[in-house]
Each structure stands twice: as structure tokens, then as C-alpha cells.
């Protein structure tokens, strides 16, 4: 009985929400670009949260009304902020987000260059006392 119920529930879930598969594909493509705010590491396409279902319905509705993808993304940003976008726009508040990795790369490369140059410098010539100690350690007789 339980297995049957589970099967029924799964069938319910799998049923496409719009009759038109082309429209549904478009809905899912836009939903892939949007973050679900309830479970933040999921897209609206992948989430089962109530809000995600509602927002997918909202996308579907607006596509049916002839809105473009850009207009729909704009609708979401106006309500939930840039955070809903998985690809946030480059602007003054996000330049560190976009540029940060390159800054780190530049810093690492600079560090590497400095390090290599330092190593290339010839070691300082041995002082008389140091040469003496080397000879002793190597067990050489003083000539």
C-alpha cells in the first residue's frame, strides 16, 4: 500500500506542469539561472520548495504573456535582489566578487617571481672562519 502511494506521489511529481514541452523547456532554462531563496544552494528549477514551485509558475505565466527572458529575470531581481541570479552582474558592489580570484592570482604570481629571483642570487662568499669550519667538517687536514 505504502509503495503504491509512493509510486502515485512520484507520478504526480513527474507530470509536466505545462502542456507545451517547448514552453516547459524554456521555463526550466530560465529557472536554472535563478537561486531558490529558501534552499539557497538550489536553483529554482531543481528545488521542491513551495516558493520555487510558485516562481516556476510565475515564469510560465509570464512566458505565456509574451515576456522575454531578460524581462523575467528583471522581475525576479526587482523583488529578490541580485542574489537570485546565479550569474550576478558586474557592478561596483560585485567587482571584488568577479575580480577577487584574479587579484589572488596576480598576488601569487608576484610572490612566485620574487621568490625565484631571490633564489637566483648567488650565495654570499664564505667568510674565512666559515671556510675553516667547512674544512674541519669535511675532515680535511689543514695544509
Amino acid at each position: 500500500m505504502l509503495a503504491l502511494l509512493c509510486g502515485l506521489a512520484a507520478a504526480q511529481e513527474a507530470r509536466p506542469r505545462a502542456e507545451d514541452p517547448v514552453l516547459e523547456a524554456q521555463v526550466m532554462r530560465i529557472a536554472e539561472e535563478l537561486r531558490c531563496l529558501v534552499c539557497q544552494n538550489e536553483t529554482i528549477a531543481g528545488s521542491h520548495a513551495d516558493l520555487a514551485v510558485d516562481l516556476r509558475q510565475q515564469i510560465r505565466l509570464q512566458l505565456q504573456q509574451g515576456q522575454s527572458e531578460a524581462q523575467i529575470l528583471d522581475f525576479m531581481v526587482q523583488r529578490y535582489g541580485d542574489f537570485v541570479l546565479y550569474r550576478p552582474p558586474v557592478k561596483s558592489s560585485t567587482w571584488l566578487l568577479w575580480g577577487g580570484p584574479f587579484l589572488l592570482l596576480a598576488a601569487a604570481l608576484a610572490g612566485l617571481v620574487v621568490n625565484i629571483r631571490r633564489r637566483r642570487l648567488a650565495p654570499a662568499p664564505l667568510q674565512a672562519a666559515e671556510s675553516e669550519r667547512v674544512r674541519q667538517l669535511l675532515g680535511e687536514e689543514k695544509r
Partner: protein
Amino acid sequence: MKRYLLPLIVFAVLLGFLAVGLKLDPREVPSPLIDKPAPAFQLARLDAPDQQVSLQDLKGKVWLLNVWASWCVACRIEHPLLVELAGTGAVPIYGLNYKDKRDDALAWLGKHGDPYVVSLADTQGLVGIDFGVYGVPETFVIDKTGTIRLKHIGPITPDVLRDTILPLVKKLNA
């Protein structure tokens, strides 16, 4: 000694970032609606479905919009505080009953008390989407011109009410 300085500085900076990160709540997403006009709505009253209330009706006063639902567990945490606030008459509280069933909602208010001047029934959650609601309870402070001044996500705590919401209401009313 000097060779330990750089790793120490890197460690300190990292520690600083982690310490700040610990205190941030990733669930609190800043609302783009702050200082923007509240989205227009027209909704039926929860207690009298044949009567409609719109944003226009609420202009000219500072008010709170509290998004709640009978299925929302966290709403119970803040509810006594709302009832108390309504008792002081400091600011009118309007409820947005979000994706709820009317009977459940009315029963819930009967059981826990009704701090709302009016609750509006957003059965489909469409007005909720316009307000960018994603985690009930949420509370908005809206000024006399109908502009959103503050959004608080999650249950209101006595601290938030005393230190943030009430001073803001006072300032907006001045």
C-alpha cells in the same frame, strides 16, 4: 622571526574574514525594495472576504506589514510580541496571511490572539512574491507615502523591536 611574520599576517586576515563570516546570516538577503514604493496590491480581508483593501487605503500613516501563516512555526515565536505591541498602540500592524487556508488562519488568530488591524488574505502568495517574501515571518515598515523603509526577515525579537523598529516608526511619524 621575520620569516614567521607573513604567514602570521595571512592567518590573522583569514581569521578576521572567518570571524565576520560566522556572524553573518546567509539567510538574510538584503531586500532591493528598501526605500522603494511598496508594490500595489488589492486583497480581500481575511475576516470579511467580500471587502477589499488596497495599498492606497493605507497611505498617510506609518504601518507594519507582518507576513504570517497558521502553518508557520516561527510565527508563533514572535506572535506574543506582536500582540503586546498592538496593545501599546505604537504602530498599526497589518497582516499578510500568506498561502494559508482561511479557516486555519482564523482559528490560529482565535487561539493565539489577533494583533492585526486587518489581515489580508494572500491565498496564492502572489502579493508575497511582489514583496519578495521568501521566509515567513517577515515584517516591513512602510511610511506615510507608501515607501518600504525596513524589512525584517524571521521572527521579530524584543531587541529588534526596541532598537530598530520602534525608533524608525517614531522617526517616520515625526
